[in-house]
């Protein structure tokens, strides 16, 4: 069974049972790359890139897909993948939108916006949780490989969204709602705050809770975790439930940013979130990966993206560079992951 070679995965703080990226060479490299990109762009477009305006603009842009990447990360840690995140995000958003619009009128009549918004957000989260639960059950109980299961549910979620809306956008939210996606607190974009909170929460969940630590272990070797008394089924279900919930939060941010909800929003984010996850050092075969890496990956891609738009590069060139960057990072990291996926781990549920 080929597995990550000790030198790169030995985590000096793991005796304290996991930790953020102190003393992790791959993380250090990613950090260096991110900084490099930032510096280059700042030098190329000093007047534009290295400005508060641009920082804030970027800070409004990445949270929505960064949150989706968090969802993707959770699924990948189990050794699976979640192709339904964007479908679920949109479905949650649309149902939240229905709540908002349904109560829109009595808002005009001076009802409390806050109540309705809370209800809408709650609805979205509930849908996300249910969707994630469905994914989890299909994968862990029935045993469909995650890539197929979530491909299917993704189509279903999107499909339901289309059915509910006839494909059209749902509009007419209370003005207060747009704060979630477009507001700022002390000059800090609200979506950024939301992402930061979620990132910290997920990092805490993964490194400080029994759930997180078991997730890493099950992702490494599902058979061994079963023999160790870990409830793989429950753990997998909870993981996808979490993934789905995160997706729905992304959906809420997305709909507020767009001040509307629609079945086809953010479709390009699916591949992007996978790209970010692997670039961030999440092992797609499970068991390894940190939120810190994910954040760095998000930042580096955003810097490239905005920088290129300022340089008036074509967005195809941007795609090319993204792909190349991923390969570059992998090469410098050398044998980051196993040469082939851990076989024992692949035998049981929760794996692709």
């Amino acid at each position, binding site marked *: 069974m080929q597995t990550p070679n000790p030198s790169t995965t030995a985590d000096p703080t793991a005796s304290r049972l996991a930790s953020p990226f102190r003393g992790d060479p791959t993380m250090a490299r990613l950090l260096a790359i991110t900084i490099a990109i930032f510096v280059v762009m700042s030098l190329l477009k000093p007047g534009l890139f290295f400005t508060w305006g641009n920082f804030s603009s970027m800070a409004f842009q990445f949270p929505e897909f960064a949150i989706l990447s968090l969802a993707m990360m959770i699924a990948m840690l189990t050794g699976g993948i979640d192709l339904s995140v964007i479908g679920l995000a949109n479905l949650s958003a649309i149902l939240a939108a229905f709540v908002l619009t349904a109560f829109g009128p009595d808002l005009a009549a001076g009802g409390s916006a806050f109540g309705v918004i809370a209800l809408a957000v709650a609805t979205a989260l509930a849908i996300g949780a249910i969707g994630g639960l469905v994914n989890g059950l*299909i994968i862990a109980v029935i045993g469909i490989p995650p*890539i197929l299961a979530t491909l299917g549910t993704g189509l279903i979620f999107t499909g339901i969204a289309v059915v509910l809306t*006839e494909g059209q956008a749902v509009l007419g939210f209370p003005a207060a709602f747009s704060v979630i996606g477009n507001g700022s607190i002390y000059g800090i974009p609200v979506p950024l705050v939301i992402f930061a909170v979620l990132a910290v929460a997920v990092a805490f969940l993964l490194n400080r809770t029994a759930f997180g630590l078991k997730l890493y272990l099950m992702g490494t070797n599902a058979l061994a975790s079963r023999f160790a008394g870990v409830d793989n089924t429950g753990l997998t279900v909870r993981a996808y439930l979490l993934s789905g919930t995160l997706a729905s939060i992304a959906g809420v941010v997305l709909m507020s940013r767009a001040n509307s909800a629609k079945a086809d929003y953010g479709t390009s984010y699916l591949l992007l979130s996978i790209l970010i996850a692997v670039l961030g050092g999440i092992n797609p075969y499970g068991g390894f990966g940190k939120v810190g890496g994910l954040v760095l990956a998000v930042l580096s891609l955003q810097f490239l993206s905005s920088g290129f738009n300022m340089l008036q590069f074509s967005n195809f060139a941007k795609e090319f560079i993204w792909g190349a960057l991923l390969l570059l990072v992998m090469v410098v990291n050398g044998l980051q992951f196993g040469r082939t996926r851990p076989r024992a781990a692949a035998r049981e549920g929760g794996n692709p």
Partner: protein
Amino acid sequence: MRSLFSRNETLVALIIVAFCVVTAIVEPRFLTITTITDLLRNGIVIGIFAIAAMLVLVSGGIDVSFTAIAAFSMYSATKLMIALGVGDQIIVAFLVAAAIGLTLGLINAVFIGTLKLPTLIVTLGTLTAFRGFLLTFVGSQLITNVPPGMRDFARSMIFRGETPGGSFVAVPTATLFLVGAVVLTWFILNRTVLGRSIVAMGGSRESAARVGINVTAMQYFVYGYVGVLSGLAGIVHASLARVANPFDLVGLELQVIAAVVLGGARLTGGHGTITGTLLGVTLIVLINNSLIMLGIPSTWQNVVIGFLILLGTGMPAWQARRRAAASA
């Protein structure tokens, strides 16, 4: 142990039959020669892709970049043909596309075989990079006046007939490419030591190296071969569609892999059969081309396709689970 009925292939076949029966009951017109020719025609390209994807899965890897390779080779080859003014030589198109596909496939192989990087991540990177490169540096304009060679190739048929309704039914020559890919890959995989070595490598890379299989060479072969198949599939696609559109094909990869896994190939490597793959493709193509017949409104089609995919993969998976539990 692998009795006929516990086999994934059998189950998928049964699902296909069941689906056809239902469709035929709902819409008797389903049972026409045209249905078969249409499905065949729409299965050619995805079929070739599936064979390629299956080979990679069997070898213990996974490739999501083949659609980008196909688009890249197809578009560049077409452009080149026009530039060189050899538009009437279809063979040139195939040779050039195969060569480009081979090159791109070998780029994958360098990262995977020589640098020993994980296949999913590498091909995810090349998928993005190849497409980006194609659209940035080769071009993004679609070529509607494809070279006459390609048009003639598309128009040439193995079989042509006419229905009572007075419309043509035909099986395009291009079908031979699918047949060729199937036969050749089957032969390599089951009759040559090379092929068995690939399967063995998919089963255990370490063991393969120990019995003296040159694992790196195998990977170069696999990804090169996949590159060539993809390149050819690209030209076939462009010819049949009579347009070289660099935006085409990319996006199919997951559906193709789904079809292959549906056919019993394992994402953990070492397992996968041609028969199963063809069955998987058949089911996917069937589903995608029968919903109007079933009278399902467009708005509902995604939902239905999603459910059918879950059904098609769920039954074999569930059965495997039960068998595993029994012999735990």
